């Protein structure tokens, strides 16, 4: 019995050491994040972005449907009438105020789904730490000019 137990234990230790030794030979999976890039899946949902048309006009028309779809009331939209001479968006209406509160947002993507013009999309930027609470409210200005523009891949 005693010999049998000893041999069994030694085998187990050998197995465990084997795993350890195997990994010793491999490259580490840890990424030195701020200094190294992380692969992101195309449909990853990160920081929001407001898109523009190729001619520079804002896609957002201030319809507030994203606000209505948002389960956490993270979005605030205030619409206004476009100046016919210098419109900001196609049509009569544009978003005068567009704010996303990142502290409330759960990154569910319902706003993307609701948007009739594909204006709001969730981008790939996930590093959103900040020092002040007020800095977590993204203004329209910040949303229109994201640091990391997103390539759109929509579900069919």
């Amino acid at each position, binding site marked *: 019995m005693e010999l049998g137990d000893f041999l069994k234990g030694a085998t187990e230790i050998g197995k465990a050491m084997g795993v350890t030794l195997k990994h010793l030979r491999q490259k580490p999976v840890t990424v030195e994040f701020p200094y190294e890039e992380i692969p992101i899946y195309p449909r990853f949902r990160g920081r929001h972005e407001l898109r523009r048309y190729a001619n520079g006009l804002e896609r957002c028309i201030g319809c507030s449907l994203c*606000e209505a779809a948002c389960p956490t009331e993270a979005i605030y939209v205030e619409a206004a*009438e476009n100046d016919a001479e210098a419109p900001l968006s196609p049509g009569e209406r544009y978003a005068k105020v567009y704010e996303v509160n990142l502290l409330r947002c759960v990154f569910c993507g319902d706003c993307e789904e609701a948007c009739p013009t594909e204006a709001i999309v969730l981008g790939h930027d996930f590093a959103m730490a900040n020092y002040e609470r007020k800095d977590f409210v993204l203004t329209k200005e910040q949303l229109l000019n994201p640091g990391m523009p997103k390539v759109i891949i929509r579900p069919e």
Partner: protein
Amino acid sequence: MAENVTLTINEQEVSVPARTLLVDAARMAGIEIPVFCSHPKLDPVGCCRMCLVEVDGPRGTAMMASCTMPVGDGMVVRTDTEQVQTVQEANLAFILLNHPLDCPICDKGGECPLQDQTMRFGPGISQLIEPKRLAKKHYDISDTIVLDQERCVLCWRCIRYLEEWEDKPQLGLFERGNDTIVDIQDGRPVDAKTGGNIIDLCPVGALTNRVSRFAYRPWEIERTPSVCMHCSMGCNLRLDTRTHQLRRIVGRENMQVNDQWICDKGRFAHGWVNDEKRLTAPLLRKNGELTPVQWSEALAFVADRLKSIREQRGPDSIGAIGSGKVSNEANYALQRFMRAVIGSNNIDHRDGGEVAAIATGVPALAELMKPQYGPDPKVDTVLLFGIDPSEELPVLDLHLKRALLRGGGKLIIAHPRKIELTKYDGPYLVCLPGEEAALISRLSRAVQDGGAADDSGPVAEAAGLLAASDSALIIYGPMAARGEGGPAVRAGLAGLAQAAGQGARLAYAGLDGNAQGCRDMGVLPDRLPGHASLDDNNLRERIETLWSCSLSSSAGYTYKQMLDSQEMRALVVMGADPADESPDWAAGLEDLDLLVVCDLFLTETAQKADVVLPAAGWAEGDGTFTNLERRVQRAPKAVTDPKSRAAPDWMILTHLAKQMDAAWPFADARSVTSEIAEIVPGYAGLTWEALGDQGIQWDAESVAVATAAPTDQVGEEEVAAGTDADGEYPLTLVSGTVLYDGGTLFRLTEQMQGMAHGATVSLNPADAVDIGVEAGAPVRVQSDVGSLELTVAVDEQVQPGSAWIPESLAGAPVGALLNGGYRQRVRLERR
């Protein structure tokens, strides 16, 4: 009236009055039939074909438009068959052929009948691949209404409203077939005073609100039922708010007051509520400058000064001015403050003690109304005496027009101007300021002679109508009964009503939103709350016990006396602006030892004040308002400005009373209402719950009718005083209210500024030729107390020998010519 008819809808037996339309019968039975053109308050037209249902007839089953089809006995109707569904789907597909589907940017999106019905009854898929019709979008058909012709589904509701209710066919259909569009006539904008109602009626987003455009989405606003405070009609409104801002106002149905219509001022002129110029902190004059201070400092200062003035000069050197623009609670608190804390009856409001009013206002508005489906109005003849509903009470104007056109009513008008309602062929009696009493006595005599008087023309015609009527109503306004001649006018009109027979009644219509409530609360120098006279011992004792004070028994100064008198040392002004009315008063206010102004804005008067207290306005405070038919209605709090330190008037006065050692039991507006219910007999038992959202009319029987004895012998001699046509001042000055004036509550709505009445003096064409001025000529209008620079307008409405200058025009206060008086003669000089 009509007997009942029984029919079967979807195998369900329904019994409804004869001549009911099928669509309404189905609604009564709880069966929904989709409609676009049909509306319960407009005549049926049957143009959208959405309401087709199957009706069994002698020649088999047929598809019938249920909105034009009256019910018949034994009719068998089906609304849920496959055939009906197919037709509904096809119809919606047809309507949507040219509808742009720009719902995300359409203000109607979210509360749109077309959206709702497409989801409920539509085909679910679109077969259209062709391009849609293009037409005018964001097309302003007035300063306040935007038309989008692409969205229009040609239901005719707007056209029918303007024709059937406003009697101003300002919209029409143009072109034919696929190109049919709604448009204004010959480029003339829609200027009907209640034109905004077509926005509420539109079943799609074709007509939208310019003032509220893109400022709200229906799913994110809070809706508060409220009442309008622009005039004394007390129309029911709904306030739509979001993020502490009033975003939109729409009409709310009250079949006793406004049906479901409201006027454009009530709908659009709400810019002042969230204006940046609103007072947000108490101001105290330090070194000649009004400086923001804490409430405690401002109130302590006021209390201190009032106490010392009362000690040194006696309580009667202090006065208070209330206002028909603020709630019952505010007015009640103000008069309690004056009577109990200060100990004086020096309390009044504009159009208060100076006007010979009738305590009970107007009998009931419902007696003047002709709803779409309902009996003719009870009142068959209306005499408007010195009141112009088109400018002063626009929804009453709507009711009257409807009563004339559809209810068989008759209208007699006595007014200094040939007002808009005179277009309805009723007799028009010219009645310049000062001629009221003479006109009444001529009219009374003619009525007594049975309409066959020596007078010919309009007076005889009017007398004939009055004598022939079973139920006449004489409505007079403050313009006709101001000043010393007022009681004689009231007595004369009472005599006229008596002469006109059993059913004739006399009514008084105040003009400010809470004019009636202000009187009910006792904001009068010679009346306690509830119109009780100062020597009504019963009420006095009750009040003295409740307030634990002793009331002064001598009548106080009226509004005018307070402002004219040199004895006044301190004034508390709440919601009024006397400095704007007279240069003398403005100068007098500067000389006061203490002027406290409680208002929303830094008015002319507030600029002269020692202390300015910021008040919470109508939308921010909770309170009750009483309209001209004595209907007490609640206007709950709808918005809160978190940055503002403004407080409701009753709260300011409660704290002020506390500083002056009087403990009032008011914790909230509701507790003030319950004290009012305890003291004012008409308001007995009134609670906010009982008021609900339709209000309660207080019982006219509760007031001992103390109006002057009717007389038909009113001063002929006054005529002489009114018509001293000396050469120096050849014209009689006519003033009065216009709807779109230059007042703060109107002017601050930017989009409406173009609609405001210009700074003009209007003359009869003949007078303009005589004087040698033409429209647009710059003139100086001179009276013996002042002068005013205006431009000339020529208007047929203005009677020969008179000059019409409305009150509170921006930058042109007619007060400069009147100087606190009511009658004045003027001359024009070209400048």
